[in-house]
C-alpha cells in the first residue's frame, strides 16, 4: 500500500521536480508513512505471535471491520497522494505556463526592438545608396564639365554619403561618430595605377582625405598626407591583406605597439576606429590569392574606447562595406570620366551645382 501510494505520488511528481516545496512535502510524507507502517507491522506481529488463537476470525463483524479499515486506509492514502500530485501538477503547469508566457513576451519585445533597429538601418542604407545613385546620375550627365568643377563631384557626393553614415552610426553607438573617405595620393612615378605594391613602393605612397562628415571637429579638416606604412589601418589592408581594420580600443593597441598613426594627437579625436576598403574582387593569382581593385577607404571613428563594441564591431564594418561597395562603382566611373575618351561625343554641359 505504501509502495503503491509512493508510486502514485512519484507519477504526479514527474512534472513537479522544479518545486522545492513539493520535495520537502514528499520527504516528510514518506518518513511519516514508513514509521506508521513499521509500527503497524510490529504491532501486528506481536499480536499474531502472542494470541493468534484468540483472534475471533469466525466473528463476521470483526473481519468486516478489519477489511474495511484496511481498505479505508488504502483509499485515503491513495486519495491523499493523488491530491498532492494533482496540486503539484496544477502548480507546476501554472508556473510553466507563466514562464512560457513570459518568454514569449520577452521574445516579442526583442523582436520589436530588432524590427525598430532594422527599420532605422534599412532607412539609412536606403538613403546612402539612394544618394550614391543620384550622384552617379549627375556624374553621367556632367561628363564634359570643366575639370575644375568636375573633380569636386566626388567630394560633394562623398560628403552626402559620409554625413548619412555618421548620422546612422552616431544613432547606433550613442556618441558622435565621424566618417570620412580617403583616397591614395600620387602613386610612385606619378602613375595612376599600380599592381601588387611592394613594401618599398608602399613607403612612397600616402592617403589623403576626400571628404569628412560635418560632425567632425573643425581642426581635423586641415588635410595632410598620411604615409600608408606608418598608419596601421591602411597598411593592414593594403600590405597585410586584411579585409578591413576595426579596433575598439586604439589606445591599448598603441600601448602594445600594435598600432601607429601619423595624425598628431589622434587620441584627442578618436580611440575606436573602423577602416574598410572600397574595392572590387577581380580574380585570383596563380597561387590562388585573391586580387582586388582598390580605389579608396571608408573610415569611421569615435572618441571613446569601445564605442564600437568589440562584439558588434564586425557588424559596423559590414555596414560600412555595404556602402563602400556601392561607392566603388562611383569612383571607378569617375576615374573613367577623368581619363581621355576621344570616342565620347561632346555633350551639353548641364548645371554643375547640386
Amino acid at each position, binding site marked *: 500500500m505504501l509502495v503503491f501510494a509512493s508510486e502514485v505520488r512519484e507519477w504526479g511528481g514527474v512534472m513537479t521536480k522544479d518545486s522545492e516545496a513539493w520535495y520537502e512535502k514528499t520527504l516528510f510524507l514518506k518518513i511519516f508513512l514508513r514509521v506508521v507502517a513499521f509500527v503497524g507491522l510490529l504491532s501486528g506481529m506481536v499480536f499474531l505471535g502472542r494470541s493468534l488463537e484468540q483472534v475471533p476470525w469466525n466473528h463476521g463483524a470483526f473481519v468486516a471491520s478489519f477489511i474495511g479499515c484496511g481498505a479505508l486506509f488504502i483509499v485515503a492514502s491513495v486519495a491523499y497522494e493523488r491530491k498532492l500530485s494533482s496540486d503539484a501538477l496544477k502548480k507546476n503547469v501554472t508556473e510553466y505556463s507563466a514562464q512560457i508566457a513570459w518568454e514569449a513576451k520577452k521574445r516579442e519585445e526583442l523582436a520589436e526592438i530588432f524590427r525598430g533597429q532594422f527599420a532605422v538601418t534599412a532607412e539609412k542604407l536606403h538613403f546612402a545608396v539612394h544618394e550614391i545613385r543620384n550622384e552617379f546620375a549627375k556624374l553621367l550627365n556632367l561628363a564634359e564639365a570643366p575639370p575644375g568643377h568636375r573633380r569636386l563631384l566626388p567630394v560633394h557626393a562623398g560628403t552626402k554619403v559620409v554625413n548619412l553614415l555618421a548620422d546612422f552610426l552616431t544613432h547606433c553607438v550613442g556618441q558622435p561618430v565621424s566618417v570620412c573617405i580617403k*583616397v591614395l595620393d600620387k602613386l610612385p612615378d606619378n602613375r*595612376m595605377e599600380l*599592381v*601588387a*605594391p611592394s613594401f618599398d613602393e608602399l613607403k612612397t*605612397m600616402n592617403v589623403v582625405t576626400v571628404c569628412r562628415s*560635418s560632425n*567632425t571637429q*573643425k581642426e581635423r579638416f586641415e588635410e595632410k598626407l598620411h604615409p600608408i606604412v606608418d598608419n596601421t589601418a591602411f597598411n593592414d589592408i593594403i600590405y597585410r*591583406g586584411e579585409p578591413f581594420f576595426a579596433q575598439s580600443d586604439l589606445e591599448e593597441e598603441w600601448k602594445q605597439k600594435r598600432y601607429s598613426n601619423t595624425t598628431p594627437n589622434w587620441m584627442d579625436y578618436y580611440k575606436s576606429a573602423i577602416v574598410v576598403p572600397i574595392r572590387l574582387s577581380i580574380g585570383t593569382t596563380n597561387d590562388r590569392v585573391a586580387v582586388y581593385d582598390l580605389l579608396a577607404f571608408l573610415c569611421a571613428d569615435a572618441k571613446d574606447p569601445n564605442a564600437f563594441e568589440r562584439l558588434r564591431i564586425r557588424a559596423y564594418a559590414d555596414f560600412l562595406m555595404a556602402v563602400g561597395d556601392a561607392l566603388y562603382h562611383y569612383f571607378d566611373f569617375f576615374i573613367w570620366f577623368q581619363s581621355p575618351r576621344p570616342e565620347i561625343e561632346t555633350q551639353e554641359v548641364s548645371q554643375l551645382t547640386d
Partner: protein
Amino acid sequence: MPKKNYAAVMAEINKKIERTGRKEADKAIYRVRAVFSDTSFLNEASKSEAQKAK
C-alpha cells in the same frame, strides 16, 4: 561604359609577383588606383567644408 580588362591586370600582377617574389601578401593582393591625378585641391575643398562643420 568602361570596358574592363581584368585578364591583363591579372597577368601583370602574376608577372610582378614572379619577379619580386613577394611573400607577405598571402591573404590578398591589390591593384591600387589613384582617384585624382592631383589631390592638392582637396585641402581647399576641405576648408570650405570645415566652414559648414559644427
